[in-house]
């Protein structure tokens, strides 16, 4: 159970068998799906991997699923392994998303997510900008005015520099005509410490996935100024950024990618598998339970989306002085 890596070595030997048979087998008969998760157990990508495993098993779409975790640097450690060691393995998928795009750019990695084959976009989490309940900022406009007046006086908490939260702040600043690099961003190691800083009134505002804040908002300890979704959300008493006058939309998206060099037949089988999975009730229930917005996209549509995001994120990271 612990030593998944050695399991994987065994599985790699077995991996050859289904590939040899793939010519005769039917498309849906994928015996063993191998998921490559370039993050530690517990995080967003790992949860996505485990949810895929769970849904595929309960719906009997595959016989078995194996998850391999290779954590490090927002996926920058895992990606080279996936590109090299998993090349051509038709029964494998990598779970990754927007964070990897940003991390590769910020770490000046020569690799890009586009070196893999985007198979399906699965989920997205919109971001929320919140303030402590006692804050003088009542609306996004109050916050925006203060930011325009003097960005150094408005410290905003979020996750690590160059991550989704930082990118959103940079985009907001840019929309308001403030230099993104001037925005006063306080990076915390993860959602917990950032949330603590907000609850303790140490910072003026905070940015993170809405799920991080939802319970504190319900308890009346935090107030949502706006969310970065495309439309209003049930149960969230806050406008979208666009409604509040800042023309922005941002999702922390996640999806699955195939390694380079897989055959067209394998790719079709994987796409088909993901189509069946995302259409299942089990999948939509799991997404609802975890507050994930379903953003189902496949093949070329998804590739185009990933390429666009790459361009957009690279631009804002340059403005932030990080890429």
């Amino acid at each position: 159970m612990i030593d998944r890596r050695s399991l994987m070595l065994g599985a790699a030997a077995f991996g050859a068998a289904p590939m040899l048979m793939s010519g005769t087998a039917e498309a849906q008969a994928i015996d063993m799906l191998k998921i490559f998760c370039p993050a530690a157990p517990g995080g967003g990508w790992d949860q996505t991997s485990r949810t895929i495993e769970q849904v595929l098993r309960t719906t009997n779409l595959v016989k078995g699923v194996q998850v391999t975790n290779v954590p490090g640097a927002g996926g920058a450690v895992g990606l080279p392994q996936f590109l090299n060691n998993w090349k051509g393995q038709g029964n494998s998928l990598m779970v990754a998303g927007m964070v990897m795009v940003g991390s590769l750019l910020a770490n000046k990695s020569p690799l890009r997510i586009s070196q893999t084959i985007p198979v399906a976009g699965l989920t997205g989490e919109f971001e929320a900008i919140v303030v402590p309940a006692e804050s003088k900022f009542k609306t996004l406009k109050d916050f925006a005015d203060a930011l325009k007046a003097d960005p150094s006086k408005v410290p905003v908490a979020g996750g690590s520099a160059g991550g989704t939260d930082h990118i959103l702040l940079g985009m907001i600043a840019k929309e308001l005509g403030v230099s993104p690099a001037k925005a006063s961003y306080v990076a915390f190691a993860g959602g917990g410490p950032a949330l603590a800083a907000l609850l303790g009134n140490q910072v003026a505002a905070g940015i993170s996935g809405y799920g991080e804040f939802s319970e504190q908002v319900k308890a009346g300890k935090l107030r949502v100024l706006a969310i970065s979704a495309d439309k209003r959300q049930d149960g969230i008493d806050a406008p979208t950024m666009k409604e509040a006058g800042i023309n922005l939309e941002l999702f922390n998206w996640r999806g699955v990618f195939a390694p380079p060099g897989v055959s067209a037949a394998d790719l079709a089988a994987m796409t088909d598998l993901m189509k069946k999975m995302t259409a299942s009730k089990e999948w939509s229930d799991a997404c609802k339970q975890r507050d994930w917005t379903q953003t189902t996209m496949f093949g070329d549509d998804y590739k185009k989306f990933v390429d666009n995001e790459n361009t957009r994120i690279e631009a804002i990271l340059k403005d932030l002085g990080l890429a």
Partner: protein
Amino acid sequence: MEGFHSLLNGFAIALTPINLMWCLVGTTLGTAIGVLPGLGPALTIALLLPITFKVEPTAAFILFAGIYYGAMYGGSTTSILLNTPGESASIVTSMEGNKMARNGRAGAALATAAIGSFVAGTLGTLGLAFLAPIVVDWALKFGPADYFSLMLLAFVTVSAVLGSSAIRGLAALFFGIWLGLIGIDLQTGQARFTFGLQELLDGINVIVVAVGLFAVGETFYMASRAHTGEDEITPLKGSLMMTKTEWKRSIGPWLRGTLFGFPIGAMPAGGAEIPTFLSYYTERKLSKYPEEFGTVGAIEGVAGPEAANNASAAGVLVPMLTLGLPTSATSAIMLSAFQSYGINPGPLLLTSQANLVWGLIASLFIGNVMLLVLNLPLIGLWVKMLKIPAPQLYAGILVFATIGTYGITQSPIDLVMLYLIGGVGYFMRRYDFPTAPVIIGMILGPLAEQNFRQAMTISAGDWTVFFTRPLSLTILILAALALMGPKLYSLATRKTA
């Protein structure tokens, strides 16, 4: 006494046979993974997350909490016996604990660690049951500026382990700070000192460094002077259990350790390591037997830090259960387990899931008793390990250290790192550099730096925040007193004499 009533209700839930079984499984598993270096509670719970699909929530959380507490217990065993800390909170334990073990007092060291863990765990859980709302309000008042001052106070503790030469000690400290800075900088997202190696982007794990310096370095050193007859291990001197004096010497450290561990553990950026440093320093200063520290091993130096790290485990659960705030890797994963049950952990948890929370708290009391019962009889067995002849024992340590390190991330790079640092450890030992400051620097250095920069960003570059915030100022004054106090005192008494 509404809390008392709820707690009784919690005991009714935790004492059902099935929940007792989960508690036993959790504490046993926790002890086992605590013993293995590398495999910590966070990783274990993450790997066990899929059981949330099969088991009802109360049972799952009783299991997870058992693992968490058990790991805190188990971590001390290898620290004391093999100088190989299982997790970062028991690094300090190995400093005095292993010295004691080499001088025939392994039994007493293990006993004071186990009983101290029990005392601190129980007091900490009482604190969690009755003081949680007060403690959490206070803990949230700490901002980055206050944390920075707290780190400065913790840095003073280095002076207790500098050894005979301050220059060597400080060199070791700065080496540790440098090791800690390797990796991606949180505030800018840029890599520092990684030499282009992707594997270094997430930094070097402090456990790898501790095991490398203490266990591997020590083994190299022993191998280099084989057959000289020096540094022989005495398996047992006197009684296996603690003597009356040892009991007396332990009680104070246990209680003081708890007082450091619980509140600092409850702070969002507090953690388990800082209270162990503070406790070690305090005990060294207060002890009536200062000559035993760093030589034959002082029991106070085991009792205090062990109590501190167990009390901090209870402290960490305070913000998690009252606010849904994950402040450690383990609690973050436990929170994600809440989510897979569709339970949203947050400020409303205590009211919406009262049975779950109180059942969990009651199971912590029960788990503590189980751990004590489980661990005390094992001491006799553990001590026998020291009778293994040195070559075999050290070979065993190497194997153990290697497997444990590989278990952290399954990365071969970590193994290379382990032996490189083991080599450094050998030279440090050979040329009389103390190794403990490396660990202190590695843990505190990056924390102090990040908090300093967070404080500076928030204050828009205003340096005076450290003196204008009451909490920060108080801690700074304490740090100054701890650093200068003893010197000034001796100066003053000399003049009057």
